[in-house]
């Protein structure tokens, strides 16, 4: 690591690193939205006729899946931006988004089988959507392992960008490709459901409202967590910088 430091304030300046006001506001707002979304999922929305109470899982299951996919798309954009500009801040956006996305997809993967056990009678099938979700989880877990195994920060960033792009392509190909060919039994919550789908359900207005609200909530959850994670990464960088500076003074 380079010990020569030119930029930044002198190490002697005591700076507090409180989160910016906007972030605090956003965090509180997101927490309130989560509460409201829980209310809508559990109390506001009526119990679905064919599936019963277990259908309420959908509000979080689908919302988290959407936000997870969005997170990995953000990683692709950040990856391309990094490869073009070579800026560390883009790399930070990239891996922060992967970490948040992985947590969100974990919610989806954990909640899905609970519902499927009731609706399909078995927790897992190799359905296109499920396959794509599993591939997604595995690829991005591998992404984090790849980064962890590489010492050099710039190489880490380059490989992260490349792997993030390829992994997203793989998820899209698995999902879109397989979906077009085999009929999915996974209900399409948004958009037309396949005619062979078992769980096709017309949405009652209250169910639809709760669903839309959960999409919105999880978008906010993603944005909030991403911002926090990015901020944490910048602070970590700053600590490393100060540490290096201190060591160079001592040595």
């Amino acid at each position: 690591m380079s010990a020569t430091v030119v930029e930044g304030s002198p190490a002697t300046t005591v700076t507090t690193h409180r989160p910016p006001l906007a972030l605090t506001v956003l965090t509180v707002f997101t927490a309130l939205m989560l509460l409201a979304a829980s209310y809508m999922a559990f109390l506001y929305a009526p119990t679905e006729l064919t599936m019963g109470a277990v259908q309420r899982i959908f509000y979080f299951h689908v919302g988290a899946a959407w936000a997870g996919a969005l997170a990995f798309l953000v990683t692709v954009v950040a990856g391309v931006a990094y490869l073009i500009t070579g800026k560390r801040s883009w790399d930070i956006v990239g891996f922060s988004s992967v970490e948040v996305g992985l947590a969100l997809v974990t919610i989806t993967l954990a909640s899905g089988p609970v519902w499927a056990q009731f609706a399909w009678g078995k927790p897992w099938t190799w359905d296109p959507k499920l396959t794509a979700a599993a591939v997604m989880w595995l690829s991005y877990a591998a992404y984090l392992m790849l980064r962890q195994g590489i010492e050099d920060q710039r190489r880490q960033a380059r490989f992260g960008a490349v792997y993030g792009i390829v992994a997203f392509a793989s998820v899209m190909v698995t999902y879109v490709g397989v979906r077009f060919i085999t009929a999915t039994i996974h209900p399409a919550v948004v958009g037309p459901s396949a005619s062979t789908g078992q769980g096709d359900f017309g949405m009652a207005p209250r169910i639809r409202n709760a669903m839309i609200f959960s999409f919105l909530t999880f978008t906010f959850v993603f944005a909030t967590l991403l911002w926090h994670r990015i901020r944490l990464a910048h602070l970590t960088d700053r600590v490393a910088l100060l540490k290096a500076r201190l060591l160079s003074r001592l040595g």
Partner: protein
Amino acid sequence: MTLELHAQRQPEAARATPLFKAAAAIAWKDLRTELRSKETISAMLVFALVAIMIFSFALELDRTGREASAAGILWVTLVFAGSLGLGRSLGREKDQHCLDGLLLAPIDRSALYFGKLAGNALFMAVVAVVLLPIMTILFDVSFFRPLVPLVVLMGIVGYAGVGTLIASMSIYARGGEVMLPILLLPIALSILIPAVRATRGLLEMVPFAELSTWFNLLLGTNVIYIVLAYMLFGFVVEE
């Protein structure tokens, strides 16, 4: 270590060797090295044979079971054997610092990618050529059907295509040999699914019209991955 060497990028005019010729030269180099030592291909072959034996013993399938799973077993074996070859192919360049030399050569970076891809696909093809007759005997399911070689070839090229890119990253990671399958297999699943489905369909004598979508998907995935790897490979080996 040889940062200074990498830093001197070759001027554009010096990159005189045409892409195809340069790629062929790199593939030929890999082939010649392999013909002398035979260490990669023999490891791949022995691994593939052991894997087939294990599948054959472990599954103890009846007639219909064998027909249904032979395609899957073929691809799983090919893919794992292939990951051995991919790891060696790029690991060797890095261990001996040959990669530095290759990067200094007055050729386009993509020539290095396509050369490596060709070499890796060739090794996998050799394994497949040995594997198909043996599996035909062991599983009593004939792989000698029209279009089976085409599916096998397409699957191999796609797998080697994305595998070459991933392996060129995994060699830099701590515990690179362990990392390669972890990084590669989730990505390669999108090639494996159509390859297995198409092979299985062919073995079960399903008419081609019903399988053409799998062929298209396999072809499409190959194109996407190879174009993507072609564009990204330069960033991986840069520095």
